[in-house]
């Protein structure tokens, strides 16, 4: 989905709230959110794709104004409700107020994933173009490289396609590649001497 999580290249965010020394958990509830996410993900057997998509479906205003530990909390609660471990009403009754969950899945379940692909279509040095598409579900193809041309710099083996595993029990394996883009090809104001590398599944790419 073209969601608020797809942040690469967006403008207007200002300074990074950088601190060289920062505790892992600033509050106990952050460690609890971390632990409870592990508990829920195991209980519902969520794939990495399904878990990430449960964060991506957060209401954009909530996403931008909450910390990542709150994203994990929202994901854990959303998956717990969607898999029937508890109801939204139970959560709100216990919390004594609103408990915002992520929005609904927009993509239909994937029934047939098709056969696994293990033979890479591309080799190091090949020029590839990223498909210009806008799937309604989960994808790991960042918006800022869609339609752009880059060069394959590394082959990383075959892995489950996130776009499929996020939407049901079907799975398909595909080769992945690290693709190098010249920043000047990504943005008109791209900085000189900057290479941006993005790791992409085979079906995101076409020969250039």
């Amino acid at each position, binding site marked *: 989905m073209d969601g608020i999580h797809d942040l690469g290249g967006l403008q207007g965010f200002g300074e990074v709230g950088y601190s060289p020394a920062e505790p892992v958990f600033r509050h106990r509830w952050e460690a609890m959110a971390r632990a409870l996410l592990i508990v829920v993900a195991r209980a519902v057997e969520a794939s990495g794709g399904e878990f990430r998509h449960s964060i991506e479906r957060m209401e954009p205003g909530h996403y931008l104004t909450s910390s990542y*530990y709150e994203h994990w909390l929202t994901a854990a609660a959303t998956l717990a409700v969607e898999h029937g471990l508890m109801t939204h009403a139970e959560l709100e009754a216990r919390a004594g107020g609103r408990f915002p969950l992520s929005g609904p899945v927009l993509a239909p379940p994937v029934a047939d994933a098709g056969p696994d692909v293990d033979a890479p279509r591309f080799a190091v040095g090949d020029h590839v173009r990223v498909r210009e598409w806008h799937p309604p579900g989960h994808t*790991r193809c960042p918006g800022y490289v869609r339609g752009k041309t880059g060069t394959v710099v590394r082959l990383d083996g075959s892995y489950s396609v996130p776009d499929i595993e996020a939407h049901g029990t079907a799975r398909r394996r595909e080769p992945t590649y690290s693709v190098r883009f010249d920043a000047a090809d990504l943005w008109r104001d791209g900085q000189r001497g900057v290479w941006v590398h993005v790791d992409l599944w085979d079906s995101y790419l076409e020969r250039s």
Partner: protein
Amino acid sequence: MTEGGHHPVPVSPAEQRVAALEALLTERGLVPDGFIEEITRRYESEIGPMNGAKVVARAWADPRYKQRLLADGTAAIGELGFGGPEGDHMVVVENTPRVHNVIVCTLCSCYPWPVLGLPPAWYKDPPYRARMVREPRTLLAEMGCQLPDDAEIRVWDSSAEVRYLVLPERPPGTEAMTEAELAGLVTRDSMIGVSRL
């Protein structure tokens, strides 16, 4: 105060929402005894940048280890006993006087847990994720990382299964140091690539 308007019910503070989720999961028998304390302890004292620092110090001290580390990061990091979730497919990228590497995850918060621990808040927040791919030269300077104007910058967006670790340059004047002393020089931020040593 009797306008009678529809005031939305306020969102509960995060602490209350976490407590609610914990209570409901515990009632269903899903939270093992001591699990939250175990996770807290693990990420506060076992899994963190001190692990990555040992990898970097070994690479500085042993050229053959460095060669293995750059050729197969996962296996070489495994030699020191580090591995597991978010560290199963490691690629180590080397800084030189002319090349600077920096890692980011524009889509979420991917980060090499076994060697760096959980990521700092700023790494996961929108400004870093939005800007590091588009204006790394500006952002690195803002964060105090000064590079020569003609240095090549390589940004690595962790968008699939690989997790990256930056191998910083060994600081001059450290020839006599032991490996343990070298590890003490290595910062988390130098291994993300937002600072140089």
